């Protein structure tokens, strides 16, 4: 099943074009990895999917991105509703400087998802359990989220993202600031989360892409060079550049 289908995406930062004619389909309930050297536009593409590029004044996005047969670049699309459906986890853990509980409950509160305190408690608990953080923080839900370790903070951010039950989760190099143990935990988590969510992950680590994803897209200089199943991209790439990159010859 195709969850997200993007057609002819061009992105400009002022006069500089950052993405050239990207066509990429994302499979539902699978993990899609976006790889490529720094500055190749993979994060830019990711941020198109929940319209986070809107925040940047000089950024313009052209093209069509269909999610559930609905063009998110259309004028009638409400970004708040869109971002409720498409969560995001950032490169650096960025919990709110509030308590762990408030971090999770923020999304459900502004979207009016809980009618009572009990319901909210339940959302917080399930979200933290799904993010494999419940065991570690259940006794200190009302302590600041910024007091957690880096890996815990990132899992808190994941828990925060899934608290509003998004259909898609975008992850922008979620492990780049973490140590190998925390990275392994997050990867395990991603594998678990794909049952309920479609996941798109930008990563610099080829090994990570190979481990967690079912599909991979390779970006280079703002173009999507090749995409397909992860197996195929890593074992039998069609394009010379892809082969050079995954074998570590450049990038």
């Amino acid at each position: 099943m195709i969850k997200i289908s993007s057609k002819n995406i061009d992105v400009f930062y002022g006069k500089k074009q950052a993405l050239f004619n990207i066509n990429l389909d994302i499979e539902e309930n699978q993990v899609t990895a976006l790889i490529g050297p720094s500055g190749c536009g993979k994060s830019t593409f990711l941020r198109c999917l929940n319209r986070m590029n809107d925040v940047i004044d000089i950024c313009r996005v052209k093209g069509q991105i269909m999610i559930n047969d609905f063009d998110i670049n259309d004028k009638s699309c409400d970004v708040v509703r869109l971002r409720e459906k498409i969560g995001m986890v950032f490169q650096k853990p960025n919990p709110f400087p509030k308590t762990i509980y408030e971090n999770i409950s923020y999304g459900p509160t502004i979207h009016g998802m809980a009618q009572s305190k009990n319901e909210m408690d339940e959302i917080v608990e399930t979200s933290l359990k799904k993010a494999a953080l419940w065991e570690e923080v259940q006794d200190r839900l009302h302590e600041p989220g910024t007091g957690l370790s880096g890996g815990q903070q990132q899992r808190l951010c994941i828990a925060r993202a899934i608290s509003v039950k998004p259909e898609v989760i975008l992850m922008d190099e979620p492990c780049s600031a973490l140590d190998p143990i925390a990275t392994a935990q997050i990867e395990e988590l991603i594998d678990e989360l794909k049952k309920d969510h479609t996941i798109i992950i930008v990563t610099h680590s080829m090994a990570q892409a190979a481990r967690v994803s079912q599909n991979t897209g390779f970006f280079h200089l703002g173009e999507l060079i090749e995409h397909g199943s992860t197996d195929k991209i890593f074992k039998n790439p069609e394009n010379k550049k892809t082969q050079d990159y995954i074998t570590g010859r450049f990038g």
Partner: protein
Amino acid sequence: MNKNKEQLLNKRYKAEKRFRLYGKSAIFMALLFLTIFIFKIFSTGYSAFKKTWLIVPVTFDAELMMLEQNPSKEDMKDADYYDIALKSMADLDPNANEDQENELKRMVSYFFEREIKRELLKDPSLIGKTKDVYLTASDDLDQVFKGNYPRDLPEDQRRVTDYQLKIFDQLVEQGKVESKFNLSFFTYPDSREAELAGIASSFMGSIFSILVCLMIAFPVAVLAAIYLEEFAPKNRFTDFIEVNINNLAAVPSIVFGLLGLGILLAVFQLPRSTPLVGGITLSLMTLPTIIIACRASLKAVPPSIREAALAMGASKMQTTMHHTVPLSMPGTLSGTIIGLAQALGETAPLILIGMVAFVNTIPGSPLDPAASLPVQIYIWAESAERGFVEKVSACIMVLLGFLIIMNLFAQIIRHKFEKKWS
């Protein structure tokens, strides 16, 4: 080659040592000036917190007070105290002639009969009896007692006469002169008589002005800063506004005073000399300071927090109100307090809008005429009487104390509420 390197190393060490020395001497200079300043203020001002009293036996003669038998409280309030007051002073020297009696009268403060009246109202059974009453000494004798008065000047060059000094010295010898804490400095309004002048009216005036200033400047400045920083498009026009705000912060305060005079008083006909007008004028001055502080602390909120909120589906306004603004509040508040502290010490604009008028009542609202602490300093510094010299310094001490408390408060807010983010 090696020698060359050693030379370079030595040079570097020396340069570093020199630089440290410059830094230390700069700090030393700053501290020195501050110490001299504070020492000067304290050494002239501390005596204002003491007040000299003459203890004079007063006979509450009902006949002289024109009181009937068994007077009511109302009668006592309306009674004439001047004659018994005069008599009790004259009795200090039974041999005094008429001129000398007059001089005796001038040894105590101008309104000394009020102090006698207060005594009787406190204890109505005093009628017909004699009691030692504390009377405020005249400002000149106050200075004599504090040792600030040049007694060796020829008599025609000073306001205290030889006769007054003689009587005063006798009283001192008898232990009838006492120096006590000067509470009236804090509870009395301004007065032409130095011994009765207090800072209550100017203190309240300052408080009301600052409150008005805060209530106008804070909301306007914070809204302006939030809009400019978070919502306004970045273009030439907003750049132009920013430059103008920064310029506004550098405009001499007297210009704002002229603005207050020309617009608030002349056009809007607001009541002259009131903390309301003073506060509005000061708020114009404080506005740019708060805007700049608020924008700086909004800028200091990491963009990752905004992104986190936006990605959760918070609208721009929710992001700003739930996350950015609360995180910027410590900086904004301490900027506000520093702006208010500046406004508190401002004199020129207040003089222009008439807060320099002589006010001998304590204002009860921002609509009553009032002075302010710095203007009070100015008024007293202009006065010729010797008694005001120490009052000027004392008033400066109160103002400084006020400022120190405010700045301390700003520091505390900054440290206590500053949240750490990753």
